[in-house]
């Protein structure tokens, strides 16, 4: 009843439009509807087993716990008693000037595990190169050579 009324209304309001037969002029490309569901399935992915609820909760909880744990460790580390500066100073002054002069670094490192990074270092610089380096760095050579 309502449809007929609407149809009559349409013919009165728009006689040209009302006189055009309704059809579906748009044609889908060949075999479109046969292939389309496969195309959609390929996009939504292969069948997957959704993880259980407890696993999803664990997956969320683990990073949160890791962050909290790191924070707690960081705070605990800061609160630990600091090493007194005097102890470091004492250790550093245990060596006399004479001891330092006689130190042979490659020899000291020879006993360490793995290859020593110092054994292959050769300072093979000419005098001119040394002077240029000192000039570039703004070094006062008299300070290095003159002893009190």
């Amino acid at each position, binding site marked *: 009843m309502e449809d007929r009324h609407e149809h009559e209304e349409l013919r009165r309001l728009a*006689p040209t439009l009302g006189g055009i037969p309704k059809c579906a002029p748009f044609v889908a490309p060949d075999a479109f509807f046969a292939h389309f569901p496969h195309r959609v399935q390929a996009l939504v992915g292969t069948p997957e087993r959704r993880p259980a609820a407890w696993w999803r909760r664990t997956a969320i909880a683990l990073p949160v716990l890791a962050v909290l744990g790191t924070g707690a460790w960081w705070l605990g580390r800061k609160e630990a008693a600091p090493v007194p500066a005097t102890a470091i100073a004492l250790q550093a002054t245990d060596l006399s000037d004479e001891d330092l002069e006689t130190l042979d670094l490659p020899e000291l490192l020879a006993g360490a595990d793995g290859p020593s990074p110092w054994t292959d270092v050769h300072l093979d610089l000419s005098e001119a190169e040394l002077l240029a380096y000192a000039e570039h760095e703004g070094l006062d050579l008299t300070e290095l050579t003159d002893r009190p």
Partner: protein
Amino acid sequence: MTDPDDAELLARFRTEDGRHYAFNLIVRKYQRRLYGFVRRMVTDPDESQDVLQNVFLKAWNGLDRFREDAQLFSWLYRIAHNESITHLGRMRRGLFVSSDSVIERLTTTLDSSEHFSGDVIQRKLQRAVMKLPPKQRAVFTMKYFEEMKYEQISGITGTSIGALKSSYHIAVKKIEEELTRPDQTNRP
């Protein structure tokens, strides 16, 4: 063997093993009607395929949250409606052109498309429909071509029935004017 109804398909979709199979059946069941609507809105066959593909991808992602107090078809149709409107808007913004230029492009697509089987009057009608603003075009398509009730269109578009009636009335008058106007472009 009869096709499973929507309630059965949704129940199967919610099982872990039947999810993909049920969705495949949903696509097969509704692809033709949705394609018809999208194609009338977008015109170009390739772009229509892309839009329809997005419709079903969105449906896949949102079907878990679908409330069964609404009809599955209306829900899918609403996605198709929104996607088509978005596509037309994106087309205008992407081309940095006015609505008239988009209409011109759609008309050219229609005239050159081999996937249009309509006669001269159908072509003229389609050109007139294309000149409607996208939302009005959607209302006209649903009411005139798909012969939907205003209540259903209201559920899809979220527009009041009064506003829909008014929109359809205006669209019909515009199309009648276009159909009765002498063809100045000498197009067939």
